[in-house]
């Protein structure tokens, strides 16, 4: 059985109340019975099923589109093509400065297609099958153009340009220069140079694909989108101007969402096409993305190349920083981009005391699926890079990977720690987490196990992955990319009310996709109101008409534990205060301070017998309010709170400032065994130690650790989105894109410590995106294992068996990418 260790002595004892306890999950009862309502479960009378016609070419001019044969098919309701979209909508707002800002991105391809799977038309029909049949009858003529697949060639003189308006395949570029890298070079005893590192393209591919049922109300001009978009705040900001309508005309509704992992943020193009179709056909339209479409045309994680890396190192192994040129590939369109060009800076030095960092960063478009946030967005790529630096330097200088980490880790006593670019790491004890991870994988026995493996003809290796999960963005960082952007800070909303029969009703602005918000919110609310979680009704899902919708509403970027719960606790405190004020008047107490909330009653502290049940409170305000004194005029027992984290706008000149509020730690340790003959390998032992501050629900936190780790291991071993030279995706479905199944996953050992965040009211930190640690740990372990086989260097984040075999066959090829210069 997978061992799951929880060591209570390491964790603070649960405080009084429900927060800190693993209570039964509220969501489960409906979900285990198949009673969840996911987007494809939503039905509307006479709705049309939509199928998108997609490009078979990676790059081609559209010379003609003819939908007439499709429209002749019995049961087909209608179609829409790019030209119509161009006439009826404006291009989506671009976040970049020139040249990226000039990109014209529409709901359907206009004039040309830029990746395989780019939608060129959409048809709606009576059944799913008919919609598919009709899509096949749409005749599209293409003039194929030359293709840009390799991001390192995208800016070549002779490279085809995807977006002529931009005049270049560059989306954004900029210099980040913190500390004094030249001085660090001068101070170094050695400089380690790495020619090229590559972070591979993959995505966490939620099991439920994207989709929506869209209705249009002619009378009010309002669209209702039953959509599984996980960041409606962003979608509405993108869609409103494109559709030339007001924000309030776009109502987003969701209940259960089958996983998101960031991949359901950038669905706004498809949603706009559906809005147009619903209006044009005057009927509800339904779209569920096919898995193949999800892979070819939705949202991949960004691919990134790190070139000409230089790492100045002192004789004792202390690293002074690094320099590199990074090229990020965002696929064919910049939909959430270029935010990935700055998000990594939340974790600039990784977990290390590196003070001097210089990165020349550029982002390019290529003829591949557009990218978007993917669990660990942009930080994952960067943290993989910092971990590779650590392990390659250790490898080359023959330093122990544990020792070099401990020497360079930021220390617990240095917290809160300001990074070279002004981010403030709130709390954490990396070395302690590492010690626990080492203990879990029985690190002292490593050399013995190595010999045992050798005796069986195998190569055993050990690797560490250390990452940070930065939670609660300061959207002001967008201004470091484009000073004209008017985004900063962050927010989330919740309302908590006491209803007429005394029910506590909580409404969230978040849009959960499996993160258990109903449960966790109920824990926080019940502790404040003195009721049990069972007595707290948290509305399932999200509805932007619920008055709990703010500009940044949604669930992404490890938001909830701080931002979402900040809103919940703020609203609940307001409600508690109102109840106390009401009860003080009714019970004749001296003031609200003399009232306590306990067991569903508001009681006088000096006389607990004088108690007003919540039901009475709710009834008085809502239904029996004659004769209440004027000082209660503002008591509604329906309290809304917007949580705003304490952020400043960063310094645009220096690209300096605090970009996120909290930093959760993940330290993973991994033992692999490689088969020399075939390059196949197996993870024999795996430990994940997490520190996300105060845990409201440890079991849920652990579940997030398991899931994020699985994503990391999948990306390390199996999951990749490779393209051939004509721009065809080679893993367009789950047959070729191998997602780890139960037999592929090693037993996971988990443990946790709690370093409460000093910056959040509950001491919590956002978490859930730390899976990148798995990629680093596997890379490091493979590199360690292969040491006796020619000492190759792992330079790619994705290491399937054949790549490991190639490292074994030709270790020199990778060794040639690394040089150590003695000073």
């Amino acid at each position: 059985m997978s061992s799951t260790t929880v060591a209570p002595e390491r964790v603070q004892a649960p405080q009084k109340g429900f927060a800190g306890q693993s209570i039964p999950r509220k969501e489960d009862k409906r979900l285990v019975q198949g009673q969840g309502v996911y987007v494809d479960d939503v039905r509307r009378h006479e709705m049309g099923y939509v199928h998108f016609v997609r490009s078979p070419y990676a790059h081609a001019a559209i010379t003609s589109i003819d939908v007439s044969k499709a429209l002749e098919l019995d049961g087909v309701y209608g179609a829409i093509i790019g030209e119509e979209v161009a006439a009826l909508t404006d291009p989506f707002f671009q976040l970049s400065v020139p040249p990226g800002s000039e990109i014209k991105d529409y709901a359907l391809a206009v004039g040309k297609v830029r990746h395989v799977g780019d939608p060129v038309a959409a048809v709606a029909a009576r059944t799913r099958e008919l919609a598919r049949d009709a899509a096949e009858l749409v005749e599209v003529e293409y003039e194929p153009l030359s293709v840009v697949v390799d991001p390192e060639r995208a800016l070549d003189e002779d490279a085809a340009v995807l977006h002529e308006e931009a005049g270049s395949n560059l989306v954004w570029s900029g210099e980040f220069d913190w500390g004094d890298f030249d001085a660090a070079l001068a101070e170094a005893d050695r400089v380690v140079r790495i020619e090229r590192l590559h972070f591979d393209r993959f995505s966490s591919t939620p099991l439920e694909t994207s989709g929506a049922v869209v209705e249009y109300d002619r009378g009010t001009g309002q669209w209702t989108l039953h959509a599984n978009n996980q960041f409606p705040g962003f979608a509405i900001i993108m869609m409103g101007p494109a559709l030339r309508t007001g924000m309030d005309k776009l109502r987003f509704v969701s209940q259960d969402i089958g996983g998101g992992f960031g991949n359901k943020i950038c669905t706004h193009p498809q949603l706009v096409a559906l809005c147009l179709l619903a209006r044009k056909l005057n009927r509800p339209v339904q779209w569920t993305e096919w898995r193949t479409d999800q892979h070819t045309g939705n949202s991949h994680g960004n691919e990134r190349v790190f070139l000409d890396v230089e790492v100045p190192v002192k004789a004792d192994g202390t690293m002074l920083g690094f320099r590199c040129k990074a090229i990020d590939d965002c696929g064919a369109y910049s939909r959430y981009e270029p935010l990935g060009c700055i998000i990594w800076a939340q974790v600039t030095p990784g977990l290390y005391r590196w003070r001097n960092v210089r990165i020349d960063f550029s982002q390019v478009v290529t003829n591949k699926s557009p990218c978007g946030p993917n669990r660990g967005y942009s930080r994952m790529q960067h943290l993989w890079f910092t971990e590779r630096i650590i392990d390659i330097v250790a490898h080359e200088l023959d330093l122990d990977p544990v020792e070099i980490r401990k020497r360079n880790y930021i220390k617990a006593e240095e917290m809160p720690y300001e990074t070279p670019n002004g981010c403030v790491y709130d709390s954490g004890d990396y070395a302690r987490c590492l010690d626990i991870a080492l203990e879990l994988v029985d690190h002292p026995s490593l050399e013995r196990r190595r010999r045992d493996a050798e005796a069986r003809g195998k190569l055993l290796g050990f690797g560490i992955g250390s990452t940070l999960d930065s939670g609660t963005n300061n959207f002001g960082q967008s201004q470091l990319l484009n000073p004209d952007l008017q985004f900063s800070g962050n927010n989330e909303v919740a309302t908590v009310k006491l209803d007429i029969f005394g029910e506590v009703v909580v409404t969230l602005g978040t849009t959960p996709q499996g993160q258990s918000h109903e449960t966790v919110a109920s824990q926080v609310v019940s502790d404040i109101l003195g009721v049990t979680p069972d007595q707290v009704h948290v509305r399932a899902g999200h509805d932007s008409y619920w008055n709990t919708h703010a500009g940044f509403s949604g669930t992404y970027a490890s938001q909830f534990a701080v931002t979402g719960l900040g809103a919940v606790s703020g609203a609940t405190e307001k409600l508690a205060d109102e109840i106390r004020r009401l009860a003080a008047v009714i019970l004749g107490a001296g003031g609200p301070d003399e009232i306590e909330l306990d067991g569903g009653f508001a009681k006088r502290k000096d006389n607990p017998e004088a108690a007003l049940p919540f039901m009475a409170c709710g009834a008085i305000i809502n239904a029996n309010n004659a004769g209440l004194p004027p000082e209660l005029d503002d008591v509604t027992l329906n309290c809304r709170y917007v949580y705003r984290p304490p952020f400043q706008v960063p310094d645009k000149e220096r690209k300096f400032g605090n970009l996120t509020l909290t930093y959760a730690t993940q330290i993973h340790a991994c033992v692999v065994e490689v088969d020399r003959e075939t390059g196949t390998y197996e993870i024999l032992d795996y430990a994940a130690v997490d520190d996300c501050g105060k845990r409201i629900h440890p079991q849920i936190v652990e579940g997030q650790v398991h899931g994020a780790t699985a994503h990391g291991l999948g990306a390390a071993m199996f999951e990749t989105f490779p393209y051939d030279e004509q721009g065809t995706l080679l893993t367009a479905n789950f047959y070729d894109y191998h997602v780890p199944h139960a037999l592929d996953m090693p037993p996971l050992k988990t443990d946790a410590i709690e370093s409460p965040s000093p910056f959040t009211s509950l001491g919590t930190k956002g978490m859930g995106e730390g899976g990148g640690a798995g990629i680093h740990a596997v890379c490091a372990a493979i590199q360690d294992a292969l040491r006796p086989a020619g000492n190759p260097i792992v330079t790619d984040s994705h290491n399937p068996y054949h790549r490991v075999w190639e490292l074994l066959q030709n270790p020199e090829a990778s060794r040639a990418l690394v040089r150590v210069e003695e000073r």
Partner: protein
Amino acid sequence: MKVEGTRSYAAPREKVWDVLNDPAEMAELMPGVESFEIADETHWKAKVKVPLGLGSMRMSIDFEKAESRPPEHARLRAKGNGVGAIMSMETQFDLSEEGGGTGMRWEADVRIFGQVASMGQRVLQPIVNQQVQNVLNALDKRVTATAGAGAEPATGASAAEEGVHPGSPEAYSDEPEGPTHSTQG
């Protein structure tokens, strides 16, 4: 994907040329041709049902004769549209006299786009080889038959037998006359 090879026919070069350059004759050679339409001397169209074992794939293919130097060299372009697949092919061959028979050097550059390309990448190359073999075998049979009764193919092993369906062993044997070299490209 490039496939190329050489082949010998026990028929005079003019005979082979005639078959290869007559669209109607070629239509006979291709498996699964359902209809055929000649637009002009250098352009013709075919609707085919490519037999793929698990079922067939319908495709409409436009052919264009791009280059023609009788009786030794010709180059042909074809572009096919099917469900989930677009095929573009450029093929050329050179005929030389070989004793009483004809030697042929041929090459084809085949590109497949669309869903089939991503789903079928690991089998596309052998499938393209199979299809090319089909055509070559049928050609062998055709020129041999029309060159006169009793004439044996120069290399007998590859002659298709009467009544053998497109999945016949002859069509896919790994003999040297099949594609001798394949590269992704």
